[in-house]
């Protein structure tokens, strides 16, 4: 393989030298400070078929130094939620707060400054790098746009440093994206996201388009960078195992809403929402004995159209445990255990019933 990055552990040395790279002062803010926050966010897109309610009432908080995982099927609105944090889509209603400031109605000019504080890594690293620019030029873009370095030599040094942080050789700076492998390109995408020293990095399915072996390398890189630089992530994925591996807290989305949130341990061991339980039952287990006993909960039908979501509980059309009440009431996200919330009228109870069925 053409993955020419260094051995993983070499990076920790780079990371520790990075206190200077990140403005000379290591960031020391009290843990748990909210970096970004969505409050009852709705993002609707008008289409010829009707208004698509991509995101329809999502609230979440990302705290400094943590990884918040966001899982869901395609069409659940998880990517749109991520885009909203950079204000790359316009919210229909609700608020977006970054660093305590309400940025929901910021002008285009002010938003450019916001985009230094919130960075993004895209799913397809090939598509997200300009084919006409060299790797170095792509990574340097945030440095130029936000005037973070003085002159070409300093910029070049900083690009070298960023390449080193993501485990790429400095001489790749003069190459073009098509000369790199998929994993190397995603490392470049990560280096570009790091360039502005953002408070939050939105990782929009950063491993979904990579080979399995490369996926693990990229996840390890992301975790190491987080540990060394104190980064905060919103990790968006449809791969439950990856989210569990990466996240401190996670949220499950279905049809534009968060249906369950909690720690990966809580959700993995004790899912409270039937949708989460169904998703989990689809994850294969490495133990052959357990795998043989694994009961799959097969959901019938497709995800309903976000143009016309079902009334009452949005999941009721596919829920094996749907009851008459579910058509009447739209369940809110309610705390069922400390820090564990689910939007189901029969939280836990329905899951128990499904599993014994």
């Amino acid at each position, binding site marked *: 393989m053409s993955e020419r990055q260094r051995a993983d552990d070499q990076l920790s040395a780079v990371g520790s030298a990075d206190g200077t790279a990140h403005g000379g002062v290591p960031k020391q803010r009290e843990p748990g400070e909210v970096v970004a926050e969505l409050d009852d966010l709705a993002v609707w897109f008008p289409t010829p078929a009707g208004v698509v309610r991509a995101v329809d009432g999502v609230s979440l908080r990302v705290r400094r130094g943590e990884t918040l995982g966001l899982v869901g099927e395609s069409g659940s609105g998880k990517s749109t939620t991520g885009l909203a944090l950079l204000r790359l889509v316009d919210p229909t209603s609700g608020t977006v707060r970054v660093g305590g400031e309400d940025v929901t109605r910021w002008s285009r000019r002010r938003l*450019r400054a916001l985009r230094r504080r919130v960075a993004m890594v895209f799913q397809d690293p090939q598509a*997200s790098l*300009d*084919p*006409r620019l060299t790797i170095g*030029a792509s990574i340097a873009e945030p440095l130029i746009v936000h005037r973070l370095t003085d002159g070409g030599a300093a910029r070049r040094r900083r690009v070298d440093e960023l390449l080193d942080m993501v485990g790429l050789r400095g001489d790749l700076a*003069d190459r073009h994206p098509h000369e790199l492998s998929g994993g190397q390109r995603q490392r470049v*995408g990560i280096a*570009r996201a790091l360039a502005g020293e953002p408070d939050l990095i939105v990782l929009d399915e950063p491993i979904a388009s990579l080979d399995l072996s490369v996926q693990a390398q990229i996840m390890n890189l992301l975790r190491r960078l987080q540990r060394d630089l104190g980064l905060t992530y919103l990790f968006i994925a449809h791969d439950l195992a990856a989210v569990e591996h990466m996240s401190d807290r996670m949220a499950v989305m279905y049809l534009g809403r968060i249906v369950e949130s909690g720690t990966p341990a809580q959700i993995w061991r004790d899912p409270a929402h039937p949708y989460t339980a169904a998703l989990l039952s689809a994850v294969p287990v490495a133990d052959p004995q357990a795998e043989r006993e694994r009961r799959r909960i097969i959901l019938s039908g497709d995800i309903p159209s976000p143009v016309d979501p079902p009334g009452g509980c949005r999941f009721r059309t596919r829920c094996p445990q749907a009851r008459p009440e579910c058509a009447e009431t739209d369940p809110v996200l309610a705390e069922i255990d400390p820090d564990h919330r689910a939007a189901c009228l029969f939280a836990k109870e329905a899951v128990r019933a499904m599993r014994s069925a």
Partner: protein
Amino acid sequence: MSEQTINHEGQLRRVLAALRRDPLALTGSLVLVVLVVVGVGGSWLAPSGINEVNVDQMLQPPSWAHPFGTDELGRDVLSRVMVAARVSLQVGLVSVGIALVVGATLGLFAGYYRGWLDNVLMRCMDVLFAFPVLLLAVAIVAVLGPGLVTAMVAIGVVYTPIFARVTRAGVLSVREQVFVRAAVSVGASDLRIMRRHVLPNIAAPLIVQTSLSLAFAILSEAALSFLGLGVQPPDPAWGRMLFDGRGFVTDAWWLGFFPGAAIFLTVLAFNLVGDALRDVLDPRQLTVSEARRSTA
């Protein structure tokens, strides 16, 4: 920046290699090289002065002394054709330059911002586009008065809508690319995105359109000069010489033939090179050849 030149060198090498492989394109390029040499050095290379009237030698057929013959005033046709090459090149370059700069700018803004700006700009372009090329050029010259400069402006205006359309079409597809969104996500301004990301990615169709338009611009200049609206006598221009020669077409064919052949060869050469460039640079063609390479 060095990273830019590396890319362009690679591109340039590919273009040159492709031109060398294609015999038609090679011929076209050679004609263009000759044309440029003659256009730049015409007045020094020409065997005699363009306005050297010699009444004893009038209407001489082609001979060793006058390979293209002489006209009704005994002037050397070869010399006049050579010096006129400069006018044609000048008009072509300047008018296409105007069309490229104005058209690409309008198309860039229209395609990038869409909305009412797009509507207003492109409807104006449609209006210009609706007129027959020559009719519009004649109308503009009629308003501004005949002459070399007004001919350039008129032809430039006439070809602006094509560039606006080609640019806008390219911008519309490029602006939906993820790398443009990525540039927005790092906080790049609209102007920066247009300059650094959009324009370089639509350069290929613009280069092709430029070389093809040069052919048509030179043809238009010949037509304007033929109608007496371009270069004014006694300065030579191919179109004008064609017009002057039309009265002698039965007994002095060389008066019209040689300027006509010059127009023909020049337009053909620009078209051949333009077609070859399209083959190399057009993104769709590129994916086909890439696909062929990857399956081979």
